[in-house]
Protein backbone atom coordinates (compact mmCIF):
# COMPACT_ATOMS: atom_id res chain seq x y z
CA UNK A 1 0.00 0.00 0.00
CA UNK A 2 1.30 3.42 -0.90
CA UNK A 3 0.97 6.36 1.47
CA UNK A 4 -0.57 9.71 0.50
CA UNK A 5 2.95 11.13 0.34
CA UNK A 6 3.99 8.44 -2.15
CA UNK A 7 0.84 8.96 -4.19
CA UNK A 8 1.48 12.72 -4.29
CA UNK A 9 4.98 12.01 -5.60
CA UNK A 10 3.45 10.09 -8.50
CA UNK A 11 0.88 12.75 -9.38
CA UNK A 12 2.74 14.23 -12.35
CA UNK A 13 3.38 10.84 -13.91
CA UNK A 14 -0.25 9.96 -13.27
CA UNK A 15 -1.66 13.03 -15.00
CA UNK A 16 0.85 12.63 -17.85
CA UNK A 17 -0.17 8.99 -18.35
CA UNK A 18 3.37 7.79 -17.72
CA UNK A 19 2.79 5.22 -14.97
CA UNK A 20 3.13 1.47 -15.37
CA UNK A 21 -0.17 -0.40 -15.34
CA UNK A 22 0.48 -1.66 -11.81
CA UNK A 23 1.26 1.78 -10.39
CA UNK A 24 -1.59 3.34 -12.33
CA UNK A 25 -4.05 0.89 -10.80
CA UNK A 26 -2.77 1.57 -7.30
CA UNK A 27 -2.89 5.34 -7.74
CA UNK A 28 -6.35 5.17 -9.28
CA UNK A 29 -7.69 3.11 -6.38
CA UNK A 30 -6.09 5.41 -3.82
CA UNK A 31 -7.52 8.54 -5.48
CA UNK A 32 -10.95 7.00 -5.48
CA UNK A 33 -10.77 6.51 -1.72
CA UNK A 34 -8.82 9.62 -0.75
CA UNK A 35 -10.27 13.11 -1.43
CA UNK A 36 -7.10 15.08 -0.48
CA UNK A 37 -4.94 13.08 -2.88
CA UNK A 38 -7.65 13.45 -5.54
CA UNK A 39 -7.63 17.23 -5.01
CA UNK A 40 -3.83 17.23 -5.25
CA UNK A 41 -3.75 15.24 -8.49
CA UNK A 42 -6.45 17.49 -9.99
CA UNK A 43 -4.44 20.53 -9.03
CA UNK A 44 -1.25 19.16 -10.57
CA UNK A 45 -3.27 18.55 -13.76
CA UNK A 46 -4.60 22.12 -13.62
CA UNK A 47 -1.13 23.49 -12.98
CA UNK A 48 0.11 21.70 -16.07
CA UNK A 49 -2.79 23.13 -18.10
CA UNK A 50 -2.10 26.65 -16.88
CA UNK A 51 1.55 26.29 -17.85
CA UNK A 52 0.62 24.88 -21.25
CA UNK A 53 -1.71 27.80 -21.88
CA UNK A 54 0.80 30.50 -20.99
CA UNK A 55 1.11 32.72 -24.06
CA UNK A 56 4.53 32.48 -25.77
CA UNK A 57 6.95 35.03 -24.37
CA UNK A 58 7.56 37.68 -27.01
CA UNK A 59 10.95 38.46 -28.53
CA UNK A 60 11.71 42.17 -28.85
CA UNK A 61 11.50 43.70 -32.34
CA UNK A 62 15.12 44.88 -32.08
CA UNK A 63 16.45 41.42 -31.38
CA UNK A 64 14.30 39.93 -34.09
CA UNK A 65 15.44 42.38 -36.75
CA UNK A 66 19.07 41.91 -35.74
CA UNK A 67 18.72 38.16 -36.12
CA UNK A 68 16.91 38.51 -39.44
CA UNK A 69 19.79 40.73 -40.57
CA UNK A 70 22.27 37.99 -39.69
CA UNK A 71 20.07 35.48 -41.52
CA UNK A 72 20.26 37.73 -44.60
CA UNK A 73 24.07 37.81 -44.34
CA UNK A 74 24.08 34.03 -44.15
CA UNK A 75 21.84 33.77 -47.22
CA UNK A 76 24.03 36.30 -49.09
CA UNK A 77 27.05 34.17 -48.25
CA UNK A 78 25.39 31.27 -50.09
CA UNK A 79 23.64 29.71 -47.05
CA UNK A 80 26.68 27.69 -45.95
CA UNK A 81 25.71 24.51 -44.06
CA UNK A 82 29.11 23.14 -43.27
CA UNK A 83 29.34 23.00 -39.51
CA UNK A 84 28.50 20.60 -36.76
CA UNK A 85 26.32 22.78 -34.56
CA UNK A 86 26.99 20.65 -31.50
CA UNK A 87 30.72 20.56 -32.03
Amino acid sequence: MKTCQQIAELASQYVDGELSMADWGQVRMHLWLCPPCRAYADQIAMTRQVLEQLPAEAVSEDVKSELVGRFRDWVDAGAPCDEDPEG
Partner: protein
Amino acid sequence: MPTGRDAELVASLIAGDEAAFARLVEAHHEGLLRLARRMLPRAGVAEEVVQETWMAVLRGLARFEGRSALKTWIYRILVNRARSRARKEGRSLPFSAMGNGEDGPMEPERFDASGKWQEPPSEWDASPSGMLMRKEMHQAILEAIETIPPRQAMVLRMRDLEGMSSEEVRNVLEISETNQRVLLHRARHKVRGVLEGYLAGGVS
Protein backbone atom coordinates in the same frame (compact mmCIF):
# COMPACT_ATOMS: atom_id res chain seq x y z
CA MET B 1 15.80 12.81 -44.34
CA PRO B 2 13.49 15.00 -42.30
CA THR B 3 9.86 14.85 -43.28
CA GLY B 4 6.73 16.93 -42.73
CA ARG B 5 6.61 20.51 -41.54
CA ASP B 6 10.13 20.57 -40.16
CA ALA B 7 11.49 19.39 -43.52
CA GLU B 8 9.57 22.13 -45.31
CA LEU B 9 10.85 24.69 -42.85
CA VAL B 10 14.45 23.57 -43.26
CA ALA B 11 14.07 23.76 -47.06
CA SER B 12 12.59 27.29 -46.80
CA LEU B 13 15.46 28.43 -44.59
CA ILE B 14 18.10 27.07 -46.94
CA ALA B 15 16.24 28.76 -49.81
CA GLY B 16 16.58 32.07 -47.94
CA ASP B 17 12.98 32.55 -46.75
CA GLU B 18 13.32 35.46 -44.33
CA ALA B 19 9.73 35.30 -43.09
CA ALA B 20 10.16 31.63 -42.18
CA PHE B 21 13.24 32.47 -40.14
CA ALA B 22 11.46 35.39 -38.44
CA ARG B 23 8.62 33.07 -37.45
CA LEU B 24 11.07 30.54 -36.04
CA VAL B 25 12.74 33.28 -34.00
CA GLU B 26 9.37 34.53 -32.76
CA ALA B 27 8.37 31.06 -31.70
CA HIS B 28 11.53 30.11 -29.84
CA HIS B 29 13.93 32.94 -29.12
CA GLU B 30 12.50 34.05 -25.81
CA GLY B 31 12.03 30.50 -24.53
CA LEU B 32 15.64 29.66 -25.44
CA LEU B 33 16.85 32.82 -23.78
CA ARG B 34 15.02 32.23 -20.53
CA LEU B 35 16.32 28.70 -20.40
CA ALA B 36 19.87 29.84 -21.12
CA ARG B 37 19.72 32.45 -18.37
CA ARG B 38 19.25 29.68 -15.83
CA MET B 39 22.53 28.13 -16.96
CA LEU B 40 24.35 31.44 -17.52
CA PRO B 41 23.06 34.05 -15.09
CA ARG B 42 25.77 36.67 -15.74
CA ALA B 43 24.19 39.61 -17.58
CA GLY B 44 24.46 39.42 -21.34
CA VAL B 45 26.04 35.96 -21.58
CA ALA B 46 22.83 34.04 -22.24
CA GLU B 47 21.92 36.58 -24.94
CA GLU B 48 25.25 35.96 -26.67
CA VAL B 49 24.89 32.20 -26.50
CA VAL B 50 21.37 32.27 -27.93
CA GLN B 51 22.56 34.47 -30.81
CA GLU B 52 25.41 32.04 -31.49
CA THR B 53 22.92 29.21 -31.30
CA TRP B 54 20.80 30.68 -34.09
CA MET B 55 23.85 31.00 -36.31
CA ALA B 56 24.95 27.48 -35.42
CA VAL B 57 21.48 26.23 -36.29
CA LEU B 58 21.68 27.83 -39.75
CA ARG B 59 25.19 26.62 -40.45
CA GLY B 60 24.28 23.16 -39.22
CA LEU B 61 20.96 22.75 -41.03
CA ALA B 62 22.39 20.13 -43.36
CA ARG B 63 23.03 17.96 -40.32
CA PHE B 64 19.46 18.06 -39.11
CA GLU B 65 18.30 14.53 -39.77
CA GLY B 66 14.78 14.79 -38.46
CA ARG B 67 15.32 12.14 -35.82
CA SER B 68 13.93 14.67 -33.35
CA ALA B 69 11.67 17.66 -33.85
CA LEU B 70 13.52 20.74 -35.15
CA LYS B 71 12.65 22.53 -31.90
CA THR B 72 14.25 19.78 -29.81
CA TRP B 73 17.33 19.89 -32.03
CA ILE B 74 17.61 23.66 -31.52
CA TYR B 75 17.26 23.29 -27.75
CA ARG B 76 19.93 20.63 -27.74
CA ILE B 77 22.33 22.89 -29.61
CA LEU B 78 21.61 25.69 -27.15
CA VAL B 79 22.11 23.54 -24.07
CA ASN B 80 25.38 22.10 -25.39
CA ARG B 81 26.72 25.54 -26.22
CA ALA B 82 25.58 26.96 -22.89
CA ARG B 83 27.33 24.08 -21.15
CA SER B 84 30.64 24.67 -22.84
CA ARG B 85 30.33 28.40 -22.26
CA ALA B 86 29.71 27.83 -18.57
CA ARG B 87 32.71 25.52 -18.44
CA LYS B 88 34.90 28.24 -20.00
CA GLU B 89 33.64 30.74 -17.48
CA GLY B 90 34.53 28.32 -14.71
CA ARG B 91 30.98 28.20 -13.51
CA SER B 92 29.69 25.12 -11.80
CA LEU B 93 26.87 23.86 -13.93
CA PRO B 94 23.38 23.19 -12.79
CA PHE B 95 23.65 19.78 -14.43
CA SER B 96 27.15 18.81 -13.48
CA ALA B 97 26.49 18.26 -9.80
CA MET B 98 24.27 15.55 -8.45
CA GLY B 99 21.34 16.56 -6.37
CA ASN B 100 21.88 20.22 -5.51
CA GLY B 101 19.04 19.75 -3.08
CA GLU B 102 16.68 20.01 -6.01
CA ASP B 103 15.34 16.52 -5.63
CA GLY B 104 14.78 16.07 -1.93
CA PRO B 105 11.31 15.22 -0.60
CA MET B 106 8.63 17.79 -1.37
CA GLU B 107 7.09 19.65 1.54
CA PRO B 108 7.43 16.73 4.00
CA GLU B 109 5.79 18.88 6.67
CA ARG B 110 2.48 18.52 4.90
CA PHE B 111 2.45 14.82 5.75
CA ASP B 112 2.48 13.05 9.10
CA ALA B 113 4.89 10.28 10.09
CA SER B 114 2.69 7.64 8.46
CA GLY B 115 2.64 9.54 5.14
CA LYS B 116 -0.94 10.82 5.48
CA TRP B 117 -1.87 14.41 4.67
CA GLN B 118 -1.44 16.62 7.69
CA GLU B 119 -2.13 19.81 5.76
CA PRO B 120 -4.30 18.67 2.84
CA PRO B 121 -4.59 20.72 -0.35
CA SER B 122 -7.28 23.38 -0.22
CA GLU B 123 -10.16 23.20 -2.68
CA TRP B 124 -9.77 25.23 -5.86
CA ASP B 125 -12.66 26.92 -7.51
CA ALA B 126 -11.13 28.15 -10.75
CA SER B 127 -10.30 27.00 -14.26
CA PRO B 128 -6.82 27.23 -15.81
CA SER B 129 -7.97 29.85 -18.32
CA GLY B 130 -9.70 31.80 -15.54
CA MET B 131 -6.42 31.82 -13.62
CA LEU B 132 -4.50 33.19 -16.57
CA MET B 133 -7.04 35.96 -16.98
CA ARG B 134 -6.22 37.22 -13.53
CA LYS B 135 -3.25 39.42 -14.27
CA GLU B 136 -1.63 39.06 -10.85
CA MET B 137 -1.81 35.27 -11.07
CA HIS B 138 -0.40 35.23 -14.57
CA GLN B 139 2.47 37.39 -13.33
CA ALA B 140 2.97 35.22 -10.24
CA ILE B 141 3.23 32.08 -12.40
CA LEU B 142 5.90 33.67 -14.60
CA GLU B 143 7.81 34.80 -11.53
CA ALA B 144 7.54 31.37 -9.94
CA ILE B 145 9.16 29.81 -13.02
CA GLU B 146 12.07 32.23 -12.66
CA THR B 147 12.56 31.52 -8.97
CA ILE B 148 12.40 27.72 -8.83
CA PRO B 149 15.84 26.06 -8.93
CA PRO B 150 17.48 26.05 -12.38
CA ARG B 151 17.26 22.35 -13.22
CA GLN B 152 13.61 22.21 -12.23
CA ALA B 153 12.84 25.35 -14.21
CA MET B 154 14.57 24.00 -17.32
CA VAL B 155 12.67 20.73 -17.24
CA LEU B 156 9.37 22.54 -16.57
CA ARG B 157 9.93 24.95 -19.46
CA MET B 158 10.67 22.20 -21.93
CA ARG B 159 7.92 19.84 -20.80
CA ASP B 160 5.01 22.16 -20.05
CA LEU B 161 5.71 25.42 -21.85
CA GLU B 162 7.32 23.90 -24.96
CA GLY B 163 5.36 20.66 -24.94
CA MET B 164 8.34 18.32 -25.30
CA SER B 165 8.10 14.68 -24.24
CA SER B 166 10.05 13.27 -21.33
CA GLU B 167 12.28 11.47 -23.82
CA GLU B 168 13.03 14.71 -25.68
CA VAL B 169 13.90 16.49 -22.44
CA ARG B 170 16.19 13.65 -21.37
CA ASN B 171 17.86 13.83 -24.73
CA VAL B 172 18.42 17.60 -24.55
CA LEU B 173 19.64 17.68 -20.96
CA GLU B 174 21.30 14.26 -20.86
CA ILE B 175 19.68 13.31 -17.60
CA SER B 176 18.15 10.06 -16.40
CA GLU B 177 14.48 9.20 -16.54
CA THR B 178 14.28 9.34 -12.74
CA ASN B 179 15.92 12.73 -12.62
CA GLN B 180 13.64 14.14 -15.28
CA ARG B 181 10.59 12.85 -13.49
CA VAL B 182 11.59 14.16 -10.07
CA LEU B 183 12.63 17.59 -11.37
CA LEU B 184 9.38 18.01 -13.31
CA HIS B 185 7.20 17.07 -10.38
CA ARG B 186 9.12 19.30 -7.95
CA ALA B 187 8.69 22.19 -10.35
CA ARG B 188 4.97 21.62 -10.88
CA HIS B 189 4.51 21.17 -7.16
CA LYS B 190 6.03 24.62 -6.56
CA VAL B 191 3.92 26.32 -9.21
CA ARG B 192 0.90 24.56 -7.71
CA GLY B 193 1.84 26.07 -4.35
CA VAL B 194 1.85 29.55 -5.88
CA LEU B 195 -1.61 28.98 -7.37
CA GLU B 196 -2.80 27.62 -4.06
CA GLY B 197 -1.66 30.82 -2.38
CA TYR B 198 -4.03 32.77 -4.61
CA LEU B 199 -6.94 30.39 -4.74
CA ALA B 200 -7.02 29.74 -1.01
CA GLY B 201 -7.63 33.45 -0.60
CA GLY B 202 -4.30 34.01 1.14
CA VAL B 203 -3.22 36.57 -1.45
CA SER B 204 -5.69 38.37 -3.64
